[in-house]
C-alpha cells in the first residue's frame, strides 16, 4: 500500500515536471529551437525521474534505464522531425 502510494507520488512529480515542460513549450512558440529545448528539458527530467523512481523502488537496472533513454530519444526525434530541426 505504501509502495503504491509512493508510486503515485512519484508519478505526480513526473506529471508536474512534464506540465512545466509543456508550459515552456507553449510559451516559446515563436522559436522552434527554444521549443525543442523545452521538450528536451522535459525528456531529460523524465529520464532522471525514471532512474530515481526505479532506484527508490529497488528495481533500477541497465535494461530499465536504457528503456527510458530509448523512449526519450524517440520522442525527441519525433519532435525534431516536426519542428524541422536537424
Amino acid at each position, binding site marked *: 500500500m505504501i509502495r503504491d502510494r509512493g508510486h503515485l507520488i512519484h508519478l505526480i512529480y513526473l506529471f508536474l515536471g512534464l506540465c512545466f515542460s509543456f508550459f515552456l513549450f507553449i510559451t516559446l512558440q515563436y522559436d522552434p529551437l527554444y521549443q525543442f529545448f523545452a521538450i528536451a528539458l522535459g525528456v531529460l527530467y523524465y529520464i532522471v525521474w525514471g532512474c530515481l523512481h526505479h532506484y527508490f523502488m529497488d528495481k533500477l537496472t541497465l535494461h530499465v534505464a536504457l528503456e527510458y533513454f530509448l523512449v*526519450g530519444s524517440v*520522442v525527441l526525434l519525433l519532435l525534431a522531425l516536426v519542428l524541422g530541426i536537424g
Partner: protein
Amino acid sequence: MIGDMQGSLASLFLPHAVHKRRARLISHEALFYYAIFLVLTIGGLKAVSLRLPGVLGYASNINTSDLLKYTNEQREGKGLGALALNDDLSQAAKAKADDMFEHDYWAHVSPQGVDPWYFFSQAGYDYYYAGENLAKNFSDSRSVVKAWMNSPSHRDNLLNTNYDEIGFAVVNGELDGYETTLVVQLFGKRRFAAPSGQVGGSEGQVAKDVVPAAAKEEVAAEESVPLQVPTQLQVARTQPVIDVTAFTRTVALILGGFIILLYLADLWYSSKMGIVKINGSTIAHTLLLLMVLLSVGFVISPGRVG
C-alpha cells in the same frame, strides 16, 4: 502451426506472459529501430530539399491586406494608433525579401553585412524610427501576426508607439532548397514627421528592433505572385508537391499514436493476466508520449519569426 503464428503475432502487440517481456513492437530493439527510422526520415527530407529543390515546402495563403488588418487590430486593442500602409516601406520590404532569396539567407543582416536600414534608404524612406519583423513558413496571415505577438521582441516592434507607417512584402521563392513564403514587415516614422521634442534622440536615431532568431525552412510555391505595386493587395499562395508540415505531422502522429496504443495494451493486458515485468513505467512512457503528441497535434507551427 496456426497456434504458433497466433502466438507470434500476439507477441508483437501484447506482453509475453511466460517470458514476462513487453510486446515486441515496444521492445528495446523496436524503439531503437523507430529512432533509426526517424533519423533516416529527417535525413531524407534534407536530402530531398538539396537534390530536388522546390519539391518540399509549406502550403500558405498570406496577403498583405490581412496582415495590415491584424496588425492594426493588435495595436488598437492596446489603445495605440493604427499604422498607415506606406508605398516606400512596402518597396523596401519587397527589396529585402528579394535580397534574402538572391543571397539565400533569412536574417536581419545579410551575409554581405547589409542591414535592414539599407533597404529603407534605397526606397527613399528617410526614417527617424525604423523596425523590421520577418516571418516564413506560415500558412495564413493571422498566424503570422499571432507569432509576432507571441515573441517579446517582435511584439515590442509591432506595438511600438514611435511608428506611424508600415509596409509589407509577401514573396514566394526558394530558400535553402525549399520553396518558401517570406513575409517582411517594416515599420517607420519619417524624419520630417518626427516632432522634435518627442523623440529626444539625435539625428538618425533609430529604434531598430532587429529581432534575433533565424531559421530556415520553407514553403513550396506553385505560384508566386510578384509584388509590383506595394500598396495593392499582395497575395502569396503556395501549394508544394509535398507539404512538409502535413507530412511530418502525419508521420509523428501515426508513429507516436501507435506506440501509445501499444503501451496502453501492455498496461491492460499485463493487468488482466497478472504479468509482472521488470521494465520502465508504462504510465510514465505514455505520459511523455501524450505530451509530445499534444504538442505536435495542436501547438507546433512550422512558421518562424525573425
